[in-house]
């Protein structure tokens, strides 16, 4: 936006590598301007009174003014309206930051640990990160990260994308971004995680999407994709004895079309089946019982590794 570039303070912001970054910076510019105006009103007003009403002689008398209802109403009401506006503006951006689009070109499972990141692609490509082994993503298309951590809480922060999400052990969180152009972008860890917290830096390298497709399919690491591994596990753990994959109703709900569907639970609540829901249902199925089904599934907590769970989720996602 052109007028926001008039504000020198926005020039301190990192490059705007996504559309959302532009929107964030516009709000930032607005906040800078409104803060400057407020500051001038408050501190300027104060300074003016200090000069004008400086005591000059010992017998000077102050005016006796106790309050003024109209002025007090105005300076309570006006800030309230402005702050509600800022709240709303921030909320609109926040929802965009938090809601990935339907068409995701790359989906990467990211696992944080002291002090590195591992990223695993849907076809099984896997990297143990370091600064010279960047996370490759397609430029101009949306990438979704599914984050977790092996040990303590870390946080995945890409200044150029103005986005950030904690990676919490025992939980899946998500983050998405769509870099406008090819380029390299720095990723910091922003949740304090011990000795090498500040050294836990990687890069995201966005490459043109044709190049990305070629890279993605070339020299596939490992024989099986996570979804394939999940399929094997699904058979090993005898999941199919209760969950059909073709839509048939047996003991438990079918896996067909489950991911992304809206679930209704026995207690009347509702939720969308996302990664975190699947994870929870696999590990402790009793947490949310789908309406109309018995609470029959055993607890898998402690029997499946994080990787197993991620693989199962990928398999379930593939059953459309």
């Amino acid at each position, binding site marked *: 936006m052109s007028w926001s570039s008039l504000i020198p*303070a926005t020039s*301190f*912001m*990192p490059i705007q590598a996504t559309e959302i970054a532009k929107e*964030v910076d516009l*709000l*930032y510019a607005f*906040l800078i301007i409104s*803060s400057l105006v*407020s*500051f001038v009103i*408050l*501190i300027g007003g*104060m300074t003016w*009174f*200090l000069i004008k*009403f*400086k*005591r000059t002689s010992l017998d000077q*008398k*102050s*005016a006796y*003014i*106790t*309050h*003024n209802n109209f*002025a*007090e109403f105005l300076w309570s009401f006006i*800030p309230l309206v402005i*702050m*509600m506006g*800022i709240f709303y503006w*921030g*909320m609109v*951006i926040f*929802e965009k930051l938090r809601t990935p689009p339907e068409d995701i070109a790359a989906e990467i499972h990211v696992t944080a640990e*002291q002090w590195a990141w591992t990223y695993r692609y849907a076809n099984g490509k896997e990297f143990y990160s370091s600064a010279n082994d960047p996370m490759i993503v397609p430029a101009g298309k949306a990438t979704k990260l599914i984050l977790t951590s092996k*040990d*303590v*809480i870390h*946080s995945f*922060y890409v*200044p150029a994308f103005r*986005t*950030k999400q*904690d990676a*919490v052990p*025992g*939980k899946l*969180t998500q983050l998405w971004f769509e870099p406008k152009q090819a380029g390299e972008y720095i990723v*910091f860890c*922003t*949740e*304090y995680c*011990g*000795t090498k*917290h*500040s*050294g836990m830096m990687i890069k995201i390298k966005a490459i043109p999407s044709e190049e990305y497709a070629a890279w993605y399919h070339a020299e596939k690491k490992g024989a099986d994709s996570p979804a394939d591994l999940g399929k094997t596990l699904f058979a090993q753990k005898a999941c199919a004895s209760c969950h059909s994959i073709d839509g048939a109703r047996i003991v438990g709900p079918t896996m067909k079309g489950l991911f992304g569907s809206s679930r209704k639970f026995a207690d009347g609540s509702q939720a969308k089946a996302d990664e975190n829901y699947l994870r929870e249902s696999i590990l402790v199925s009793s947490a949310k019982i789908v309406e109309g089904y018995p609470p029959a599934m055993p607890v898998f*907590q402690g029997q499946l590794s994080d990787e197993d769970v991620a693989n199962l989720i990928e398999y379930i996602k593939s059953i459309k």
Partner: protein
Amino acid sequence: MSSAHTKTEHGHADHNYLNHGSGIWSWMTTLDHKRIGLMYFATVATLFLIGGFFALGIRLHLAKFGAEPLLDPDTYNKFMTFHGAIMVFMVIIPGIPAFLGNFVLPIQLGAKDVAFPRLNLASYYIFIAGALIAASSMIFNQVDTGWTFYTPYSTAKTSNGVILLVLGAFTMGFSSILTGLNFIVTTHKLRAPGMTMDRIPLMIWALYSTSIIQILATPILAITLLLIGAEKTLGVGIFDPDLGGDPVLFQHFFWFYSHPAVYIMILPAMGVISELITAFSKKTIFGYRAIAYSSVAIAAVSFLVWGHHMFVSGQSTLAGIVFSIITMFVGVPTAIKLFNWISTMYRGTVTFEAPMLFALGFMFLFTIGGLTGVFLASTGMDVHFHDTYFVVAHFHYVMVGGTLMALMGGIYYWFPKMFGRMTSDLGGRISWVLIFTGFNVTFFPQFVLGAMGMPRRYFDYLPEYTNLNQISTVGSWLIGLGFLVGLITIIHGIFKGEKASDNPWGAKTLEWQTSSPPPHENFTTTPTVTAGPYDFR
């Protein structure tokens, strides 16, 4: 209230609370709130010097002046932890309520002492015990978790020193609760005849609101800290995901206390500022009720905003939005106070002695701190700024710039009453210039660093952040020098200061109607109050 409205006589000038008993034992066993206040002063000032030492160490390291880093990563993390824990739990939280509050509150109410003098002394020793337990973690098993003790880092990945530090904070929490209780009962029960609730000074309203938060919120911290200890020693598995716990639950518990704690720090500062602005404008405070009730409003809303520390923690988007809107509401009573203070100066007769300079410095720094708080309350904006130097700059402007400016202003203001002597006004002004300039040089560049993306708690950083970090470090030396000058001014004042009159500033509240220093039980005759607290006619 003007002296015409109060019937007080001065005690014998040669007999006061300072020489009421002599020897160190008479101090250690004193039940006099004024002496206990001064004992807190000495303790908090010592702890402030230790916390300041760690601060200067952190800044010196981050300046990267030498080829070799000054600290290794683990030492740096420990410096960062002790700096935060000492400054928050042992300096800023107890600073104004326990020190200035203890000294001033009963006199301003026209009371002989607090409601429970023995409990007051016990609170002091509990505080000392807590500080010693916490300090012992500096010797055994140093802690590197940061003052927030986030799990599972604190429970699963670091030394057992955490247990000592949280046990210390737990113990100091009792001191905080008991002091709060004492203040609430004193305010309700021991007001002088004629002092209705709408005639109590605004300092009291602020301390009263603070006390409510202390009583309601501190137990939550206590339980949370105990759970960390239990998790570490017994492996109960409430926060540790390996044991089926939820690490984010800890953050909910922690901020449910620690966010209101921010107001435990800032509300008393606002009380001090209300006193200073009216006294040095020689004018009735503008909108007494609005300031008083806005303190209570801030205290109430402070309990509902903790989730704004967790916008990126994985809590639901809806929760983030709800916490964001409630957080915005805090801005309103805060703005009301600023407008009221400024209006108090309108058509007043303003003078600029050292305490007033600190009050004006508070207004300046707090305005910047408050406005940048709006940036962080806005969800879409906070995602970028969360856990960066922008946050570090913001809370230093509010907590340190705000609270410490008020604390320094309060010390210079009530010093004549405490010691019966004046501090050198020049010394006070020099310390003000250094501290005020230093704060801005230190922390303003950190807003820019945060916008550029530099995360907090970083031992090392990208080369493009170097210049601003170096400027920030130079600023920290100015602050250090400013406090050193302040300390010298205070020590000089205690021993060599000019004799103070009973009411050197011409203020109206009750503490200025008794002698300087006051007699053992504050007033020789119980004062009677017939008008509001700031009746400058």
